[in-house]
Each structure stands twice: as C-alpha cells, then as structure tokens.
C-alpha cells in the first residue's frame, strides 16, 4: 500500500525528477520531511497550501514551495532523501512539520546547551544555531524577514556545499 501511495504521488512530480522518484519506491516511511523521502515534499506542499516548483541540477533536486509570505526549499539527493531544507520570507514556516523528528533532536541539543549555560545570560532575539553531528540548523532575521536552513551532514551528496542549501 505504501509503495502504491508513493508511486501515485511521484506521478505528480515533474518528469525530469523521475529518477529520484523511482529510487524512492523503496521502503521508506511516508510522513514529515527532513531526512525523509521526496514524497514528503508533497505533504509539505499540501500542509502549506503552496505552489511547487522543482529544479534538477544533477547533484540534487530542489523543490521550492511558495505560500503566503514564505518560501521553503527542500533538497533531495540522488538517493531520494531530503538532505536539507531552507526557508525565507516574512514568516517562518511550520518548522515542526518541515523538520519532522529532527525538530525534537534540535530542541534537545539546544536545551542541553542552555542547561550547561543556565547561570549565564543568554542570547536574546538572536539567531538560532544548532550544530550536532547529526544535524545543523540555523535561523536568523527580524520582523518581516526570516531566513533559515537545516541539513543532515551524513545525507548531503558529495560535491554539495552547505551554502548550496539556501
């Protein structure tokens, strides 16, 4: 059933990224996004009620979802995994949906850091930076302009720089 569902959603993606769709008709779980399959891009598109644009630059496919005041870009490896996401616009996206289980991982990493420095003053209205072996996440900006990126270093294809994820 799962495979059929994924194959069905694949048909909605542009033909030129068919290769990554075929690859993901392997037993990946469907849901959420970062670290997940290309199919989850469509879950995000539905959740954001946005329009989708996809670009294949050979080393990865970038899917761009635009909705009210926010642009989200999701980066899919040739192996069919979403290895990075980036966002910009007047409002941050629904990060719980976009990051899936990695939201909790980033949350825990930062809480641990904050506990270690709990007697110290903390950054206020300052950029978020989370760097762990399994996840890198940044968000910066101010009222009317937010920018952020998150990626899983182990899933980033060879030849792709972190700065490409934007």
């Amino acid at each position, binding site marked *: 059933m799962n495979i059929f569902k994924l194959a069905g959603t694949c048909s909605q993606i542009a033909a030129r990224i068919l290769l990554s769709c075929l690859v993901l008709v392997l037993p990946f779980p469907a849901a959420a996004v970062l670290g997940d399959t290309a199919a989850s891009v469509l879950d995000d598109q539905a959740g954001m009620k946005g329009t989708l644009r996809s670009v294949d630059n050979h080393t990865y496919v970038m899917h761009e979802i635009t909705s009210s005041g926010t642009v989200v870009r999701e980066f899919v490896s040739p192996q069919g995994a979403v290895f990075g996401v980036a966002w910009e616009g007047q409002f941050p996206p629904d990060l719980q949906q976009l990051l899936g289980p990695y939201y909790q991982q980033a*949350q825990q990493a930062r809480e641990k850091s904050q506990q*270690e420095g709990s007697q110290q003053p903390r950054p206020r209205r300052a950029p978020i930076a*989370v760097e762990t072996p399994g996840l890198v996440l940044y968000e910066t900006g101010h009222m009317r302009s*937010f920018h952020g990126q998150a990626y899983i270093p182990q899933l980033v294809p060879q030849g792709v720089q972190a700065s490409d994820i934007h």
Partner: protein
Amino acid sequence: MHKLAILLALGSVVLMVACGGSSSSGSSTITSVTDSCSPPTINYGQTSQCSASVMGLGNFNSAVTWSASAGSISATGLFSAPSSGDVSLLVTVTATSAQDGSKLGTTTVTVNPTQSANNMAPIIVDAGPAGLQPPSVNVGFVTVTICVPGTNTCQTIDHVAVDTGSSGLRIVSSVLSIPLPPANDSSGNPLGECLVFLDGYVWGPVATADITVAGEKASNVPVQVMVPSSGSPPVPGSCSNQNPPGGAGNEGGSVNAFGANALIGVGLFQRDCGPACVSNSPPPAAYYDCPASGCNPTNVTLAQQVANPVSGFGSDNNGVLVQFPSVPDGGSLTSNGLLIFGIGTQTNNGLGDSTVYPVPDTGNNAGNFTTMFNGSSYPQSFIDSGSNGFFFPDSSIPMCNGWYCPTNSPDNLTAVNQGSNGQSGPTTHFSIENANNLFSTNNTAFSTLGGPAIGGANSSFDWGLSFFFGRDVFTAIENMSTPGGPGPYFAYNLP
C-alpha cells in the same frame, strides 16, 4: 467714479468689484493699501497667508508686490518664516501697489521658537527587571506610560526593552494593571496575535492604549498583551509551530521568560505585519480571529495592526536615534544612553556625519543590507538593538553556550556595510571578547559580546546592541521623509 478692488492673495485670483463703467478709462489713482496675515503668530518653519486690500479711483491696477523683513514671501502673499531660531521675531510684511510705489501697507507677523516636545527618553542597560535570573545583558530599557485611551487611567512601566528590530508595544500581561480595551476584528470577535521573534514567539490579544514616552504621545494605538501558554486564549498550534527548535517557545508569558516588562518596537515599519496580513490567502499565522470556539488566522487592515508608537507621535515621528557612550573592553556595570525621537526634526537628532544605508521595505529581504566580512558577502544583514550581541558567521571562533569565546581575546575584526543603493560605508571596526570572561563579572553592558549566526551564501550579520556603544544609530521609518532621504534606512557614524 470710485472703484474698489480687493486683492485676495489666494493663488492668483484677483477679485475686482467694479461699479459700472468701462475698464479702458485713462486716469486712475491709488488711495490706500492695507494688508494682513493669517495667522498673525506662527512658529519658525511655518507659513502665514497674507492678503492686501487696494483702494483707488478710476480704473486702477489692484496688483501689489510683497516683501518681508525676514523669511520669505511669495508673489501670492504666502509668508514663510525662517526655518529655525531661538528667539521671538517680529517680521514686517509689506504690500506695495504695483501702480503707485508710494502706496503701501504693512502688517506684523510674530514668529516664535518652536515649543519642541521633549524627544529624549533615557535608556539604561542594566541587569533588567528586579530579580531577573540569569541577569539581562546588553538590553536597553526605557520607561513608558500607557493609558486607557482618552482617560487619566494610566500606568508607568519601567524596564521596557528598546527594539529597533520590530515595531509595536507589547506588554507582559502580568505587568498590566489598567483595563486596556481589547481590540476586535472585522467579525466583532477579539483579535489575537502571534508574533515570532528570532528565538521564540509571543502570543496574546490586541488592545488599545495611549502611549507616552518622554514628551511624546501617541493616542489610540493598537498594542499586544502577551499571555502565558496557560492563559486565555490558548496558543494556536499554527503559532507555536513557528518556534525554531531550541527556541524559547512562548517567551511573552512572564517577565522572567521575556527578560523585560514590555518591549517597545521602534523599527523600520509603521505596522508590525504590514500588507502581508491584509489580503493574503490563506491568511498568515500572525493575526487571529478569536471567537469563543477558538482562534484561527485572519486578515486585518493596516489600521487594526499593532503599530510603531513613533509613527503615532504628532511630531518627531520619522524615526529614532539611539545614542550610547562607548564602554571599555570588558564591559561596564551599566550604561546610560538616549532614545531620541525624530531624525533631523530638532537640534538633537541631526544625521551629522552618519552614513545612510537604505534597505528594501518589501520582499524577502525587507529591512536588510549587505555586510561584507571575511571576504564574504552577507546579504541578509541588519542593525537591531533588540539583539543583545553581534551575531555573525565565523567558523574560526570557538563557540560557548551560544556565544563566541575567542582564544585570543579580544579578537579585532572589520566589516563593511552596503545599503540597497549599492553604496558602501566606511570600514567598521569591532572586537569580540571571550563571553565566559565577560560573564565572570557583574557587568551588563558589553561592546564586545558576540555569537554565531547562519553560515554560507544565505547568510546574515546581526548588528545587535554591542554595536550601539559609542555611536549614533538611526532607524528611519518607511515612507517618512528625513534629511537623509525617505525611510526605511539605517544610519550610523564611526565612534
């Protein structure tokens, strides 16, 4: 035969009241010229409209020429006082008959010095509201008085954080002791708001207040009352889900979580959300329609949105100047600065030697300029007194609990900022000291405190309060004219 002509100097309209006869008769005489100006008393920089009455015999010419002993006067009699002055001035305005230069009328206009509003609110950087733990660092606080609109039911709130990175007054609900009237949306339901800051969000109803800071007052201003997650109405999931992982979550719920009793956003924009909340479909998760059944995103008009209080002032409303003295490396126990309202509106808020850095007012880069640092370009950069340090990407500096702790401290650095007009300012020098060392003192004001920000091409340099010490830093409001051009822009000088 008498003719009476009255010259009303409104534009070039000349009213001639003729008592019959032809207009081509030969001889004519001017008998008198009188003039008057309304209003007869004005301030420096203002105008007064003058008119002349010419009386004569025959088919006389009713035209006059205007002159003034100070200031200037147009051919139509519009008197303009000198732009500024410290003492009252009596100006003689003369209307002279064009036909007979010996016939003239005079009147006096009194020009008074402007009764300027006190536009200076003292700022203090200290440990924050009483009992705050851990103590606040690098946050500037002012005192603000709010009133139930149109009444003397007022409350003065201290330790209101000054934020040039946002717009609008937001008050922690537990601090509020007066019954501000709640604002309703177009459906007649209570209006709620979710506002996402960089490291968390605030949630709560919109209310209306009169706001007074120093000698400046804004009336009937929409403000936000920030409520805890246990409060009412409950925080919608579409609000809390914008919290970045590891962010502070609902940080407006208490004074301790917020680090201030309130926050006054005096930034680039007149309203907090702007056009994006007026007609987007679906509405963004920013303003909420809150019937008893629960809150859902809704569109609101600009007038319903939480407003920059400065935009509501009667004068000095085109921006702000934040001034701090320099502090030594290692920091100071406290620092006393000024929040000065207006740019170029009084003698104390001129741009002087500051460089203007224009920023876009719309798009994904609204409010951003470009910082060039370490050989890279950072196109999402901004100045923000509400951020409590320099936040920028530099992988060569070790991090420590969200701050930078350089091994060789101080780490002396330079950067160049460039506005959206493509013009670069002079090189900006700054230093980063080891945050652990800084925090080992009781100091609260640091010009050398910094931490990490986003790396790579999609990157940002956040010039927070560390940057403000020893400088004049201006934030000009969108669509307002200033001597440095229209806002929005940032401007600052070298220390």
